[in-house]
């Protein structure tokens, strides 16, 4: 083999001009291949690691209540976040609070999203670099969001600040609805302005996560919308989402409370009875109702009714939570009937679902046992009529599924909070399709280019075989086997392709350095989502580059096979007789 290698090397040097031209074509082909593939990988990384992470997360847990997103919470379920953080492949779990609000600046007003930033979290160096990349500051710093000397410090994009007519240190007001459904107005002080790295980053305003939670009246025990950043998101997003889906299977909802009638008070546990027509009808068969099962109605345990002296048709006061200031909040409820709770259910008061779930969502819970055991015990009788902790949406598979689920959430089809686990694949199906399309277009374009280059390889080799026919005859006469002749031409081609593709790869890397230094405008640029701080991003992978070099060498060898086999088949006598 050494003889073949040595001889092949000398043969490449024999016709320097031809080898140079063919090598240049191969090098340019490789250059385009590496460049295009690195560019698509760059786009893919931008989409997956930057846009998708900030827009949808690789995987996300969506909490919605009463048709609202981002500003709602699962009360008392913050522990689920800790469990999710412990899952394999999870790099980061971020609580996301987005408050759709109207911002009134000094010149104009505009709609905006107020996003909470977790300042207590210890960020890795890589994450800080990522933040710097995505939010290069024009003035101020994200760390200033923790300042206590100004009211609600906020960071805003340069374009948004210019539109609103506000600058550093100036105050704007935000009008929004909090998690309890109340309209709120807050003053925000601009302490930082950043240059958006792409079009997606222009809209949001940032406040600290703690302040965002406080503005929305969400406390530390509540679970909010979670964005997960994963290792190898393309592989792990869906399995992780499926695992979380299983973790989030809801139990039956319970709420401690008390019932007051006249001067008497009874501590109870309450459960919700679903209010859809089928559930109402089924419930009517189980319990004799004296009034329609709609609105502020309740079924009391007979023992509680006896102790209170209340009977069907009476109006009792039900306390299901306390206000922010700690005062009990009571509702007047009509007793629609009485029932005998099964063993273990204790004094279980059954409430119409709308009232029950509203109390769970909008009020702080009364102290005491959660009452979940009593509700579970009632399952043997009431089965599917009991209201769950939350509605867990089935896993969406397509963007259309997601759109349909958003429509259902918007239509408030469920009285309970809604939880959905999503991945970037459903959330950003169109973006991923765009990345796949770019990959495909690049591949096709490069393959066409290579067909042209390889046609050149075939033609050049055919010409070479013809020119060297007598020499082939001589070599065969001297004792070179036919397969060694074939190997000689294949090795010549492989060597030329290898060195050319190395040169092409070097050229591609030089081009990447040059192109990534070019700066493009972001504003008004439809391709800005593919840019990072106005620059093209190339992500050349070591393995993919090695693979591309091997692909070029492999394709060249395949193309050379025909002419090489033709050379090997030559009869020595005929080859020796050959004259041009």
């Amino acid at each position: 083999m050494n003889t073949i290698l040595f001889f092949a090397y000398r043969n490449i040097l024999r016709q320097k001009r031809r080898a140079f031209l063919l090598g240049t074509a191969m090098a340019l082909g490789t250059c385009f291949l590496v460049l295009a593939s690195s560019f698509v990988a760059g786009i893919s990384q931008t989409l997956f690691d930057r846009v998708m992470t900030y827009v949808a997360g690789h995987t996300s847990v969506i909490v919605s209540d009463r048709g609202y997103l981002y500003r709602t919470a699962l009360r008392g379920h913050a522990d689920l976040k800790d469990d999710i953080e412990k899952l394999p492949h999870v790099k980061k779990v971020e609580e996301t609070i987005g408050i759709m609000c109207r911002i009134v600046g000094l010149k104009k007003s505009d709609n905006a999203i107020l996003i909470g930033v977790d300042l207590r979290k210890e960020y890795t160096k890589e994450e800080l670099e990522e933040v710097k990349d995505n939010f290069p500051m024009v003035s101020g710093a994200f760390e200033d969001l923790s300042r206590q000397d100004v009211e609600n410090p906020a960071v805003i994009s340069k374009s948004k600040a210019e539109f609103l007519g506000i600058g550093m240190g100036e105050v704007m007001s935000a009008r929004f609805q909090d998690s309890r459904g109340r309209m709120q107005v807050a003053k925000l002080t601009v302490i930082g302005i950043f240059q958006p790295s792409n079009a997606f980053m222009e809209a949001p305003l940032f406040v600290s996560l703690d302040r965002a939670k406080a503005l929305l009246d969400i406390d530390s025990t509540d679970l909010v919308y979670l964005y997960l950043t994963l290792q190898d998101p393309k592989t792990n997003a869906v399995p992780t989402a499926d695992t979380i889906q299983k973790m989030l299977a809801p139990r039956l909802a319970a709420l401690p409370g008390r019932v007051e009638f006249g001067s008497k008070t009874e501590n109870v546990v309450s459960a919700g009875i679903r209010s859809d027509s089928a559930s109402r009808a089924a419930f009517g068969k189980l319990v004799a109702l004296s009034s329609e099962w709609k609105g502020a109605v309740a079924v009391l345990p007979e023992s509680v009714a006896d102790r209170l002296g209340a009977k069907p048709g009476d109006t009792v006061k039900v306390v299901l939570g306390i206000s922010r200031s700690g005062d009990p909040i009571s509702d007047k409820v009509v007793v629609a009937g009485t029932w005998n709770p099964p063993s273990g259910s204790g004094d279980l008061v059954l409430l119409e679902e709308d009232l029950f779930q509203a109390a769970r969502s909008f009020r702080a819970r009364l102290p005491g046992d959660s009452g979940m055991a009593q509700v579970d015990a009632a399952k043997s009788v009431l089965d599917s009529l009991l209201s769950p902790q939350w509605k867990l949406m089935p896993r969406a598979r397509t963007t259309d599924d997601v759109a349909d689920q958003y429509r259902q959430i918007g239509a408030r089809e469920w009285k309970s909070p809604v939880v959905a686990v999503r991945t970037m694949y459903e959330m950003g199906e169109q973006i991923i399709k765009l990345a796949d399309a770019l990959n495909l277009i690049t591949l096709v374009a490069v393959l066409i280019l290579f067909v042209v280059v390889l046609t050149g390889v075939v033609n050049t080799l055919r010409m070479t075989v013809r020119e060297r026919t007598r020499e082939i005859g001589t070599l065969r006469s001297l004792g070179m086997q036919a397969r060694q002749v074939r190997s000689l031409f294949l090795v010549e081609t492989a060597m030329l392709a290898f060195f050319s593709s190395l040169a092409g790869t070097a050229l591609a890397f030089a081009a990447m350095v040059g192109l990534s230094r070019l700066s493009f405008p972001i504003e008004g640029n439809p391709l800005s989502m593919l840019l990072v701080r106005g620059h093209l991003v190339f992500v050349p992978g070591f393995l993919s580059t090695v693979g591309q070099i091997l692909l070029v060498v492999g394709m060249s060898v395949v193309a050379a096979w025909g002419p090489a086999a033709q050379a090997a088949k030559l009869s020595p006598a005929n080859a020796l007789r050959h004259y041009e």
Partner: protein
Amino acid sequence: MNSGNAVNGEFARQEPWMREPTIPPKGNAPMNIVEIRNLTKNYPLGNTTVHALRGIDMDIPKGSLMSVVGPSGSGKTTLLNIIGCVDNATTGSVKVHDQEVTALSDRQLTNLRLNRIGFIFQTFNLVPVLTALENVEFPLLLQGGRSTSEVRAKARKLLAEVGLGDHEKHKPAELSGGQRQRVAIARALVTDPDLVLADEPTANLDSETGESILQLMQKMNDEFGTTFIFSTHDAQVLRYAKSVVRIHDGRLVEGS
């Protein structure tokens, strides 16, 4: 440089693809190195057939220095090609070193050429990208089984024998016609072949150089006992041959 010496050892060192049981080992050579019986060779040429050889019978004893003489188109080259196993007979029997070559595969024929036969061509046919020394080394490298230093030493010795010891780094294009043919002779002899075939070795040389080449072949024949068969249409060079066969229109007209 005796072909009967290191032969068995060399054969044992060959790479597996070179070992062919059908080729007898050197050292057991029969009296006749070539035996040809009723050899014909036809070439199709368009709708007609060219009868290049029309029933050749001949025996070539080992150690011969034989000349095949005849005009252009008489079948000299065809005969040498068939003896040299680079072409096939149409009919008849050809034994080289007591081996019926018409029954051998391409691979076996190639092995036979590599190990037993040397070629010298009219147009020298040196590999242009290799130096004189590398050209001589090349058949040894194809044989394999030797260290680089062994190969180099043997090639250098041969080049010195043909008087080109100080031209080993020259490429063929940097050598005169006579020097090229000397390199070709060294290349033909480097594998210690039993038989060297030279097709019009002096045709592209001036008479003085041509004679020096024939003298060299004569010297090698005398010193090493290598069988040389050379074709020529030049009656002037016949005096160097120990035996002569004349061929005309594909038939032997003189000699055996």
